[in-house]
């Protein structure tokens, strides 16, 4: 293990613990209202979603518009699981923390979404570019319509369910502290994934898929893998969402929802996880802060998006990753370790010596 890598991991961990500490203090002393806590929760969900979409849109370079569909699969799966556990009295009652059920449910949501990711990805990823965007949109809409019309996924669920209705009565057992760390772990896992041979292969395929096959990479495998990993985390995000919001309607997982997350990816930078994190926070919190202008939210997004596309086609941060370690080094006046890579500004994956916060 590289020394510099351990060092920056530690720095990041320290930063996260400080952030978490602040969060605890703010919550325990009731400085944050429930409303603000809710926004923070949605921020965490958006961060996971934006990063997961970045894997396909940013790193693999393929516009997939079905993200919300997988989020929906995760949400419904997780909700159904906690509902089933509650009615069958599994892991419920004194001494068993809700969080255990919550974690099992979101993991299951992620896994089912990933399975669907494989099933959808294998046929869909034979196409690219515009066609891929359309076929993923099509799959996403099919997922939505099917969920909407499944009897056991509407109303109170299972035998009491009815098609075409929102699924209600989901235990609201998502806890902000837990969700914070789930989010951190998700982003960290996506980061390690991207900075491994898998991520390298995915970026290589975006660069030039013919050269990638000529280097011995099985393109189909890596594309489907990227799509699957992305679907998994979308599913996890959906699971959290279900247990935060308490009721689910299939209509909220349509392709417009997918585009919202793609917008976050584009703003943050296609190929920058930290960019996605920042964009997710800003684009979730800003409309809340400017509540009176909320009618103009999408209007402003769309205009901003077009401007970004005209002037910075790869997004605001491009592939640049924000790094606390680098920031500290800069403050201490240390020399930048991999200057060329950063200077070139094209692709920051060369900055392997540095870990990224969150």
């Amino acid at each position, binding site marked *: 293990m590289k020394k510099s890598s351990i060092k920056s991991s530690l720095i990041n961990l320290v930063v996260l613990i400080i952030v978490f500490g602040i969060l605890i203090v703010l919550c325990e002393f009731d400085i944050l209202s429930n409303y603000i806590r809710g926004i923070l929760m949605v921020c965490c969900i958006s961060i996971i979603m934006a990063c997961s979409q970045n894997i396909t849109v940013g790193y693999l370079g393929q516009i997939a518009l079905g993200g919300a569909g997988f989020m929906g699969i995760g949400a419904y799966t997780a909700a159904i699981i906690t509902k089933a556990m509650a009615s069958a009295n599994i892991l419920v009652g004194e001494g068993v923390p809700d969080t255990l059920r919550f974690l099992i449910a979101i993991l299951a949501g992620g896994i089912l979404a990933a399975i669907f990711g494989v099933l959808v990805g294998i046929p869909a990823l034979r196409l690219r570019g515009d066609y891929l965007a359309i*076929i993923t949109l*099509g*799959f996403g*809409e099919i997922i939505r319509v099917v969920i909407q019309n499944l009897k056991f996924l509407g109303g109170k669920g299972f035998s009491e369910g009815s098609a075409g209705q929102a699924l209600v009565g989901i235990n609201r057992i998502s806890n902000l502290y837990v969700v914070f760390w789930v989010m951190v772990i998700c982003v960290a896992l996506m980061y390690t994934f991207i900075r491994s041979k898998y991520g390298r292969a995915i970026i290589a395929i975006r660069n030039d898929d013919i050269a990638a096959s000529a280097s011995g990479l099985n393109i189909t495998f890596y594309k489907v893998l990227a799509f699957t990993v992305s679907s998994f985390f979308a599913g996890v995000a959906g699971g959290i969402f279900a247990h935060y919001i308490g009721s689910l309607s299939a209509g909220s997982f349509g392709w417009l929802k997918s585009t919202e997350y793609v917008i976050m990816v584009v703003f943050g930078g296609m190929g920058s996880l930290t960019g996605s994190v920042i964009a997710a926070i800003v684009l979730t919190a800003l409309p809340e802060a400017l509540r009176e202008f909320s009618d*103009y939210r999408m209007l402003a997004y769309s205009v901003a998006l077009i401007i970004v*596309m*005209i002037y910075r086609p790869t997004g605001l941060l491009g592939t640049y990753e924000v790094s606390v370690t680098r920031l500290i080094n800069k403050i201490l006046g240390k020399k930048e370790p991999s200057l060329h890579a950063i200077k070139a500004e094209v692709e920051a994956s060369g900055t392997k010596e540095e870990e990224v916060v969150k």
Partner: protein
Amino acid sequence: MSDQLVTFVLQILNGLKIGSVYALVALGYTMVYGIIKLINFAHGDFIMVGSYALLYTMPIMVSMGMPAWMAVVIAIAICALVGITVEKVAYKPVRKKGNNMSALITAIAMSLFLENLAQTIFGAAPKPVGTIFSFPDMVFGEVKINGNTILTIIIGVSVMIALQFFVKNTKLGKSMRAVSEDGQAAVLMGINKNRTITMTFAIGSGLAAVASLMYCASYPQATPTIGAMLGLKAFVAAVLGGIGIIPGAMLGGIVIGLVESLSKAYIGDLTGGVITSAFSDAIVFGILIIVLLVKPSGILGKNVGEKV
């Protein structure tokens, strides 16, 4: 004629009606794709622009003593103007600087922009559009056919024939085909590419206005998102027929219209109630997926490989 047969004939006519709307919209997608290789996600929203234009110009027309449907002329002009503006303001600069992906994102953003702009201006609630035309119903024995349905089909077919004539026989139509075949070569042959692109947008958007007239004749409401699903399905139609191919868009539109109408009517019975008519959107997208997987270039398209 038995009742079943009557229903079937009516469903076919319904399918042809909505299919000709899809076909006109699909033409817009296909012409733009053919010429700049961009899925113009905002194209569906031109229908919305068209329907609001109709909504507000129809009373003026009527007050001036003209028939209400004449409003479509103004709607076509407005849509064409919006189409050209979208191309000049957003697509052209992005095309110059960005890649396919940024162009696609711009198109999605433009769609969001138009929908939200309409929502800001007109509000989210649906607004009723007055009666555009009332054609007398036709009666063949026991079968009563809605006159507007027939009229819609007739308008659709004649516009398509006119377009085909235009593209095949006029100078502008020929330059459109030339640019979509090989843009650079067309420029070398002295074709003004930018003007051709502008005209393509104008015509495509104008067709969307006609489509909105036809659509509003049956569903007389204007909403900010009227074009979203309609546009999506028309796009499916364009892909189905072979994107970039004009007869393909017409064929695809009609097929999607028929599939939708027939599946709504019969899928429940055919599958013993497992799949209900609520799945009809899913069926349309299912067709899209199958087409993309089996023959991505569409029914009338040619397969092209990548050069190494």
